[in-house]
């Protein structure tokens, strides 16, 4: 991946991770604080409800106590309880008593009121006539009401056909003697109202009381059917609460809706107070908050992405410029210099690059100067060499050519001497003459060879397509006598046509085959001329089975006048292979030899294929 997108991606990813982390943290802390706030609110509500409930119960207890302490009530009760039943006094007292207590019922403080005989537990006067004559001897409010003010917790009243709570207080004479128990049933609608009284503007908040049988004691707001003492509630919160605990829990409420639930075990009332709110509502602000965070995060990410692109570009732009510059420099724009605008590392890099470019340009110029100078010198030297070479060749040619004349004269004269005085002088004279003729003849051969050698360079003819096989035939024809005498067998491959000077090529083959014949071993010579195409040249080989030679001489033998044997062993001028070398080199080829003493030699030479 290219640097710019990579950097951008890294920056954006980093920013995204950072934002997500911070956002999540903020969201969680927001949610947590909201949760705490909601719990606090619910707790406060629960405490307030409990306090209100306690106040209500205390108020009722105080009310029944006040009524029980009323002298008129006590007096009438005393008469009623002491007078014989159905006596006019009793009836009178009964009626007075009812007159006394009925306003409390009419005023709504109690649903009904009754006075209970403390011994039998029988109701002797009641605002509800149906209650008179009944026995309350086993009712907790009666048992406890004999001792002091008491409120019996919620129970199912068959008479009321519904839940009831009853407050009771002892009726005592001024001297403290127990006359009876005054009991009044509480209007649970009031309790219901207290519990259901709502403070906030919430939608799903609810408060209710549950008794030890897991039944609703007050009507839950979110249930429309009558639920009091008819409908059970078995939520986790209620279960925990009924086990005697108070606390907070996030569980499903009685509608199976996830809620935050605060529960309080009211041990005095033996009731469980539950205050709850749906989580969905409680966390509505977190959702908005989360939305805001997400929106801000997205915006920030957008900005971060833009910044990342800009940052990546600001980093990569000089690098790219550097790269382009380096590329152009590499393509030869040595004058190119990079802008050194920034002061950072990239600026320094550009600076270094420019310094390097300048140095490189200088070196380049220097190198060029050197090269030019060298070329100049080489050319001069070459010209000098060529000239001296030419002079030398000219000299050799002229020398050998001009030497021929006097030598011919000397040789002719000596030969005349021999013809005329052979046998007429003494034996020593004949010997001297023979020596002179031999020397002259050798001198002629030498000069001829030298002439041939020098002619190769100076008197060459232009190259033309030359059929090597006919050339070889001509060369072998020239050597016919030697071949016949030696009994040599000469074979050759199919030979190509090359661009060469025909006469020189004949000379070349003649010299090489001649050498092969000359340096033969005891075996009859077997000579093979081969050819092989290598790259753009033909490589010819002349292989023999002659005496061969040590590898160390393989170079030397191509020098002028270089011989490995005495003239007596093998006649010759020592110039033949030098001529060969010169011919090959004139054709732009190379000549070399591989050899092994006693096994034979193979001479190779190459002729470039100029077609």
């Amino acid at each position, binding site marked *: 991946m290219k640097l710019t997108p990579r950097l951008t991606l890294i920056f954006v990813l980093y920013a995204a991770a950072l934002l997500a982390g911070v956002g999540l943290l903020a969201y969680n802390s927001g949610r947590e604080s909201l949760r705490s706030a909601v719990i606090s609110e619910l707790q406060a509500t629960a405490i307030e409800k409990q306090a209100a409930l306690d106040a209500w119960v205390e108020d009722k207890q105080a009310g029944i106590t006040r009524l029980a302490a009323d002298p008129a009530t006590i007096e009438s009760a005393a008469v009623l309880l002491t007078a014989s039943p159905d006596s006019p006094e009793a009836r009178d007292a009964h009626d007075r008593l009812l007159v006394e207590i009925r306003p409390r019922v009419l005023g709504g403080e109690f649903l009904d009121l009754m006075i209970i005989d403390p011994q039998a*537990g*029988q109701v002797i006067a009641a605002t509800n*006539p*149906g209650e*008179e*004559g*009944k*026995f309350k*001897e*086993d009712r907790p409010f009666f048992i406890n009401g004999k001792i002091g003010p008491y409120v019996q917790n*919620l*129970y*199912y009243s*068959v*008479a009321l*056909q519904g*839940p*009831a709570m009853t407050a009771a207080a002892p009726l005592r004479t001024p001297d403290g003697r127990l006359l009876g128990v005054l009991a009044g049933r509480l209007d649970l609608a009031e309790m219901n109202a207290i519990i259901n009284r709502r403070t906030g503007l919430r939608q799903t908040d609810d408060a209710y009381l549950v*008794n*030890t*049988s*897991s*039944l609703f004691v007050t009507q839950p707001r979110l249930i429309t059917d009558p639920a009091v*003492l*008819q*409908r*059970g509630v078995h939520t986790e919160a209620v279960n925990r609460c009924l*086990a005697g605990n108070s606390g907070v829990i996030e569980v499903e409420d009685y509608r199976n809706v996830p809620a935050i639930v605060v529960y309080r075990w009211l041990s005095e009332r033996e009731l469980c107070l539950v205050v709850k709110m749906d989580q969905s509502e409680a966390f509505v602000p977190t959702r908005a908050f989360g939305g805001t965070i997400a929106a801000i995060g997205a915006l920030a990410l957008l900005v971060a992405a833009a910044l990342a692109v800009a940052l990546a570009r600001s980093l990569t732009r000089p690098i790219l410029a550097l790269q382009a510059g380096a590329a152009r420099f590499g393509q030869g724009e040595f004058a190119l210099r990079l802008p050194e605008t920034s002061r950072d590392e990239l600026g320094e890099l550009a600076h270094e690059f420019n310094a390097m470019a300048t140095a490189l340009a200088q070196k380049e110029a220097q190198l060029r100067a050197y090269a030019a100078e060298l070329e100049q010198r080489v050319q001069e030297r070459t010209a000098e060499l060529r000239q001296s070479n030419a002079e030398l060749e000219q000299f050799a040619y002229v020398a050998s050519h001009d030497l021929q004349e006097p030598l011919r004269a000397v040789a002719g004269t000596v030969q005349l001497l021999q013809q005329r005085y052979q046998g007429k002088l003494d034996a020593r004279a004949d010997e001297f003459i023979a020596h002179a003729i031999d020397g002259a003849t050798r001198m002629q051969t030498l000069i001829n060879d030298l002439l041939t050698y020098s002619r190769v360079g100076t008197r060459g003819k232009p190259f033309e397509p030359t059929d090597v096989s006919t050339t070889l035939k001509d060369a072998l024809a020239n050597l016919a006598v030697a071949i016949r005498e030696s009994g040599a067998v000469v074979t050759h491959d199919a030979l190509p046509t090359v661009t060469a000077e025909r006469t020189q090529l004949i000379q070349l083959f003649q010299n090489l085959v001649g050498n092969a014949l000359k340096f033969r071993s005891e075996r009859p010579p077997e000579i093979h001329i081969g050819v092989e195409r290598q790259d753009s040249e033909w490589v010819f080989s002349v292989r023999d089975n002659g005496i061969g030679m040590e590898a160390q001489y393989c170079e030397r033998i191509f020098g002028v006048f270089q011989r490995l044997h005495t003239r007596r062993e093998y006649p010759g001028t020592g110039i033949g292979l030098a001529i060969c070398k010169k011919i090959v080199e004139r054709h732009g080829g190379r000549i070399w030899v591989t050899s092994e003493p006693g096994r034979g030699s193979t001479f190779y030479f190459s002729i470039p294929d100029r077609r």
Partner: protein
Amino acid sequence: MRIHKRLLPILWIVGILLISVGCRSTAAPLTSVTVQLSWTHQAQFAGFYAADQNGYYAEEGLALAFLPGGPQVDVLAPVLNGVAQFGSVNADALIPAQADGKPLRAIATVYRRDPFVYITLADSGITRPQDFVGKTVQTGLRGIPRLRALMARIGIGPDRYTVVESTPDLAPFYSGQVHVRSAFLTNEVLTTQAAGYKLNIIYPDDYGIHFYADTLFTTDDLIARNPDLVRRFVRATLKGWTYAVENPTAIGPMIVKYKPDADAELESEKMTASLPLVNTGEDFIGWMKPEVWAGMEQTLREQGVLTQTVDVTQAYTMQFLEEIYGK
């Protein structure tokens, strides 16, 4: 994600294993348990039905069979001779059994207020037992001691009212031939109300006569031998009753399974009517109080049903209720 993908098959396998293990545990052979009911199938036994059909018994490893009762059925005998392991009977039958040395014991009670009430026509002006003076009261043979006890409680002797024996026929009551009739809150009361009569209902419970009805009982032997079985039975039954209290209208349709010709709607009404007796708002469903047991013994003794004092604490045990409710 990759890890999740790799884990998924493992979770599947684990899940399937768990499910199969779960299946095996529920498929384990259930202990057969037979309950002798005190009457023919009706809403009076709602808790049993709910526990049976909601699988509460199965959860406790029990398979319930019911022996219905009836007018001629001895409820105690099958439990005594092991035909049934548990029974449901009025508590006042268990105390004389105790006196007779029958090794039976109450373990919980369904009706904590007596469903055995007295009804009068609303316009009769008879609203209290005190008003029975000079009137004709119709009640069953076994109801007579209770009536006597009730009247004695308010100081009215047997000579001041007339008792006639009950017949299923309600015509004498409607016609005013008998002024007061003993009735089962969930039976005759509903029947008469359904017939369009307005009633005054007089609860003996309001006059110091507290009788437990439909009390669960078993043998001392089973309690000693297999208390766990008893606990499981009581727990599931009480759970059934809790369900019945909270869902009275669901009871009617359940009864049809045991009594195909049952009137589901009527049975649900019966359940609704019995709610305040089962769920009094005090203590817990099934709970029993020593003073009530003592009171019952006293009442029975005073009325001559018992000829001697009975150690009533031997007639019931709170062991299982206390264990179940953790009290």
